[in-house]
């Protein structure tokens, strides 16, 4: 059965293709080509939501992106979107939609009491009321979020996929109305690569709502159809429909969101739901048209009150009667077209209420000729009706238009079509930082000079007649193509059409009501945020002056619609209050996105496993087989510890640590950053980068180095080996390899370009296996026959090349555990083979794989720092007690900073050891330390614990800490108050806890 308010013919819907959908649990019928809004209106459903603050019944106020009332929740469960505009939702079979912001239902909403209590909820209510105590804000917020707020977030992860793509074009044309089509045609014909983006599924824009207009002497839609066919045939033109151009950023970078599947009943598995286009356009033609402005009058928000142009769209495009008995309320001639269309469609036009002192103009005359009742110099001073408007009170205006004369006449109606003029959709132009000017004749903001390579054309440029739109669009497209080097030959002349805009008009920004402002009746300025003219006046009385402040205080023009219908009215009402011209008030910033963008497109495919790459060493699979627990170090997956059956982490780590001191342990150190440094000035370069001396390092020797920032703070450390006269291999901490390489390159390229040095990251080219413990030498001896491992032939801090397990290897005798240790580097592809060979051969020594946790304990036993754990960007080598590594005879990066007066302060934090009084107590890392426990809430903090472990080899807890003047406090008792109120007592010690003479390392 056709819906009650559907016309039997006309419109751009397909009556042979019925669609069922569900709204608020009830099933309705619509047609292919409908939006949710048009289908609801066809079924006589006007009440679709409740307002944000007062929970007033709200209907559909527009037919496009500017919709501020009919915000709808579409879908259910995990597949749901809040705050979609019913006017932009394409109807699809099985669509499930519901009202938002109402409980228990849109018909009966208990929070409507907010409306009765509205005098208690003025602008700035939340700022004023919930100021104190701050701790209660969490409670307030929950209540407020339930009572106010818009739609609901999905329950569960998004089941759809999203995509992102990059694109480039010569000319982007935004909007496929008459202006945009003309621009795309002229640019496309010239040969430029053109993208034409259109937010709707179909082309033509406003022409789709115009039954009477002609272009080139033919019905306008025939011209649209021919334009579509021609553009589709041009290989250099791409049409992007259902694509919202939501943001205009620097250097003609444009964000577009394409909707690929929302309108499909069956969603093809190969298509993403939405696609983000990151587009760089050489030239942009902004042809985004204009949006009709509502009038600000008393209780102008009831369901059934909508923009006059929306009435026309529902009638002409969707074949829907938005009411049976209508009143047109206008300040201009153009809106009379709505009265004429309604009259023709059989809607009873009860009256045309015209604010103008003289009702004149071509359409006004046509209405007069049609016998329609015109009430000149009249205003709607009140409206009635709860869930749908049912009557308006109409009265003549006083001479100045600031009040009504008499109580007026009541006119019954179920539809009020409103027009307050038109606002060019200058959002994108404003986002591009183009200037905005005020057009006095049309009383609207229009684009001024462009700041980027863009042009604005058509209604968006304040050119409201069709003829002007077509010629401006044509010229803009041609100029854009010429600007990128196309000659424009082959381009026809601009299509011609009648050029007539909506003037004459009268600008009465605040329509008087039957009661004084703020004393009954609400003059809504921003319906989405429930901001009234009285709220604006209150903010001004309270002293707000800047329009940006008024906007934030009252929230007018904020929210998902970004003030598309409210901004100019708000600015005009403010200007009137101050008695200054509108341009003096200024205009608030238009921010992206133009309409909300799905979060999913920004994430695209970078979700789940693809969020961040996981880097794995060549031995990773073996570690997995061994049951390793892993930890993330940067992007690397590193074995954390290798638990045996029944072991917890603590037990496993203790076992691993003991094995490295008692027999031999083995660790995968492949993640250490490795930088190959070559060139005749390599030694000189290292000498400038590191704090210690490098020129005389012998070939085949290794040296530990500290690297500082120019501010003197420790940046990285590691061992670098001299492979040849002009060849070094630097190691960096695992997480710091890329920043260190960048640091080196920066100095090499920008400060010392005279040095001949080449840097290559070789981290992933080598696998590194570290064996440590008293049996390390014996084990290695069984695996190599061409390296003399004796302490004399292969001393500590040297390296040899040879074969290990038959694999060509670089063997470094260096140690991070403090025990006899070798780091064996082999080509990455041999990593697993080497590991396996070492495990097999090591069996007789009970070889124990150990992870990063055991490594941390081992190095802490020796007092070795980890940059980034024991340092934090405010720590110098001197603070670490590492003066021995700082050269006094040469310059290096950061050197001068070490001689600043502040560096000598005795209360600088210094690295020391801590021993707890109770040997079994392990201080938490990050714990604060104080000299004495105070009773008050604040205590003077001396520093904090940077590393803390149970040391099985010391058979007690050990910790490292940065403590003010720490080295002068040896033996001093310090206290660490804990969150649970307990206090851990400890004493300051040397930072080396085990084998202080280093005999094990060198043996």
């Amino acid at each position, binding site marked *: 059965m056709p819906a009650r308010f559907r016309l039997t013919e006309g419109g751009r819907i397909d009556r042979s293709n019925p669609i069922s959908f569900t709204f608020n649990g009830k099933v309705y019928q619509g047609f292919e080509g409908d939006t949710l809004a048009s289908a609801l209106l066809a079924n006589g459903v006007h009440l679709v939501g409740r307002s944000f603050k007062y929970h007033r019944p709200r209907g559909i106020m527009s037919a496009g992106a500017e919709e501020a009332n009919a915000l709808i929740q579409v879908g259910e469960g995990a597949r749901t979107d809040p705050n979609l505009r019913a006017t932009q939702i394409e109807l699809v079979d099985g669509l499930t939609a519901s009202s938002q912001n109402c409980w228990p239902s849109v018909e009966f909403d208990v929070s409507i009491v907010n409306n009765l209590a509205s005098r208690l909820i003025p602008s700035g209510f939340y700022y004023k009321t919930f100021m104190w105590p701050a701790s209660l804000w969490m409670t307030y917020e929950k209540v407020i979020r339930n009572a106010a707020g818009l739609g609901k977030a999905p329950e569960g992860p998004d089941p759809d996929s999203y995509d992102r793509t990059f694109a480039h074009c010569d000319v982007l044309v935004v909007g496929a109305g008459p202006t945009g089509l003309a621009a795309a045609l002229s640019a496309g014909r010239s040969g430029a690569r053109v993208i034409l983006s259109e937010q709707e599924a179909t082309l033509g824009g406003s022409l789709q709502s115009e039954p009477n207009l002609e272009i080139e002497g033919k019905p306008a839609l025939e011209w649209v159809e021919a334009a579509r066919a021609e553009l589709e045939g041009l290989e250099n033109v791409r049409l992007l429909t259902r694509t919202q151009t939501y943001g205009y950023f*620097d*250097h003609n*970078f444009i964000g577009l969101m394409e909707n690929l599947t929302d309108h499909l009943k069956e969603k093809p598995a190969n298509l993403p739901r939405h696609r983000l286009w*990151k587009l*760089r356009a050489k030239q942009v033609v902004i042809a985004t048209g204009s949006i009709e402005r509502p009038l600000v009058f008393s209780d102008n928000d009831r369901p059934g009150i909508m923009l006059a142009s929306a009435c026309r769209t529902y009638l002409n495009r969707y074949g829907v009667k938005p009411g049976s008995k209508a009143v047109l309320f206008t300040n201009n001639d153009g809106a009379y077209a709505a009265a004429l269309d309604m009259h023709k469609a059989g809607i009873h036009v009860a009256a045309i209420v015209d604010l103008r002192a003289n009702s004149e103009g071509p359409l006004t005359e046509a209405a007069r000729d049609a016998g329609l009742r015109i009430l000149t110099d009249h205003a709607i001073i009140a409206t009635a009706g709860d869930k749908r408007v049912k009557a308006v009170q109409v009265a003549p205006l006083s001479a100045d238009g600031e009040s009504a004369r008499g109580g007026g006449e009541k006119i019954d109606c179920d539809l009020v079509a409103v027009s307050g003029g038109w606002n060019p959709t200058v959002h994108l132009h404003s986002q591009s*930082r183009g200037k905005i000017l005020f057009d006095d004749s049309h009383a609207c903001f229009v684009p001024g000079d462009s700041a980027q390579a863009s042009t604005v054309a058509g209604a968006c440029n304040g050119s409201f007649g069709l003829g002007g739109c077509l010629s401006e669009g044509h010229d803009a497209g041609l100029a854009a193509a010429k600007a990128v080097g196309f000659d424009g030959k082959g381009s026809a002349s601009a299509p011609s059409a009648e050029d007539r805009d909506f003037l004459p008009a009268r600008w009465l920004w605040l329509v008087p009501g039957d009661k004084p402002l703020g004393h009954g009746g609400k003059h809504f300025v921003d319906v989405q945020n429930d901001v009234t003219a009285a709220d604006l006046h209150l903010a001004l009385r309270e002293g707000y002056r800047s329009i940006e402040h008024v906007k934030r205080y009252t929230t007018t023009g904020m929210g998902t619609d970004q003030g598309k219908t409210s901004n100019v009215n708000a600015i005009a009402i403010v200007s009137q209050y101050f008695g200054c011209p509108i341009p003096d008030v200024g205009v608030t910033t238009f921010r992206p996105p133009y309409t909300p963008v799905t979060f999913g497109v920004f994430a695209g495919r970078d979700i789940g496993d693809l969020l961040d790459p996981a880097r794995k060493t060549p031995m990773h699979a073996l570690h997995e087989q061994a049951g390793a627990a892993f930890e993330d170090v940067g992007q690397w997956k590193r074995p954390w510890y290798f638990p045996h059956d029944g072991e917890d982490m603590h037990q496993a780590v203790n076992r691993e640590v003991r094995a490295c001191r008692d027999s031999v342990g083995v660790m995968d150190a492949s993640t250490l950053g490795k930088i190959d440094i070559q060139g005749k000035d390599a030694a000189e370069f290292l000498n400038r980068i590191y704090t210690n001396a490098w020129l005389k390092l012998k070939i085949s020797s290794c040296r530990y180095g500290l690297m500082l920032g*120019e501010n003197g703070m420790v940046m990285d450390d590691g061992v670098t080996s001299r492979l040849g006269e002009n060849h070094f291999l630097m190691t960096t901490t695992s997480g710091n390899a890329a920043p260190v390489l*960048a640091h080196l390159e920066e100095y090499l390229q*920008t400060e010392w370009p005279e040095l001949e040095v080449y840097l290559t990251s070789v981290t992933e080219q080598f696998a590194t296996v570290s064996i440590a413990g008293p049996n390390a030498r014996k084990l290695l001896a069984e695996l190599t026959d061409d390296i003399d491992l004796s302490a004399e032939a292969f001393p500590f801090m040297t390296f040899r090349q040879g074969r290990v397990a038959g694999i060509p290897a670089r063997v470094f005798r260096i140690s991070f555990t403090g025990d006899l240790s070798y780091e064996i580097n082999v080509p990455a592809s041999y990593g697993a083979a080497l590991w396996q060979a070492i495990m097999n051969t090591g069996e007789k020594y009970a070889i124990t794989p150990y992870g990063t946790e055991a490594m941390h304990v081992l190095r802490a036993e020796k007092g070795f720092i980890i940059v980034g754990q024991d340092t934090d960007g405010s720590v110098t080598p001197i603070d670490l007690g590492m003066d021995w590594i700082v050269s006094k005879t040469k310059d290096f990066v950061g050197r001068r*900073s070490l001689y600043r007066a502040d560096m000598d302060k005795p209360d600088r934090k210094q690295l020391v050891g801590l021993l707890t009084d109770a040997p079994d107590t392990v201080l938490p890392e990050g714990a604060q330390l104080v000299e004495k426990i105070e009773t008050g809430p604040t205590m003077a903090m001396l520093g904090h614990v940077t590393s803390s472990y149970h040391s099985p080899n010391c058979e007690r807890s050990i910790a490292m800490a940065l403590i003010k003047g720490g080295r002068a406090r040896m033996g001093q008792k310090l206290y660490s108050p804990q969150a649970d109120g307990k206090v851990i007592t400890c004493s300051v010690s040397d930072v080396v806890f085990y084998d202080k003479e280093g005999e094990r390392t060198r043996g």
Partner: protein
Amino acid sequence: MLEINCPYCGPRFETEFSYGGEAHIERPKDSENLSDEEWGEYVFMNSNTKGVFLERWVHTSGCRRWFNVARDTVSYKILAVYETGTEPPELDLRKDV
């Protein structure tokens, strides 16, 4: 998002680059003789120019090379791109915003 014309790779998105602050600040060779204030000036203090600013960029996700850019900090327009160690080209410093 800026489009930066890397002198070695051509125009690329800003996300491929890293910023290096003000250009043409030479690391002092005689830092021994600088006062703490003078050294601090070098390490910490950059100009915050409104208008044309000469700055350093590095093509981190590309050729890894450093170069200089003349950019208007008001309009974000890039007026010139030139190699490290060379003098900035003659610029038309007309304000276009």
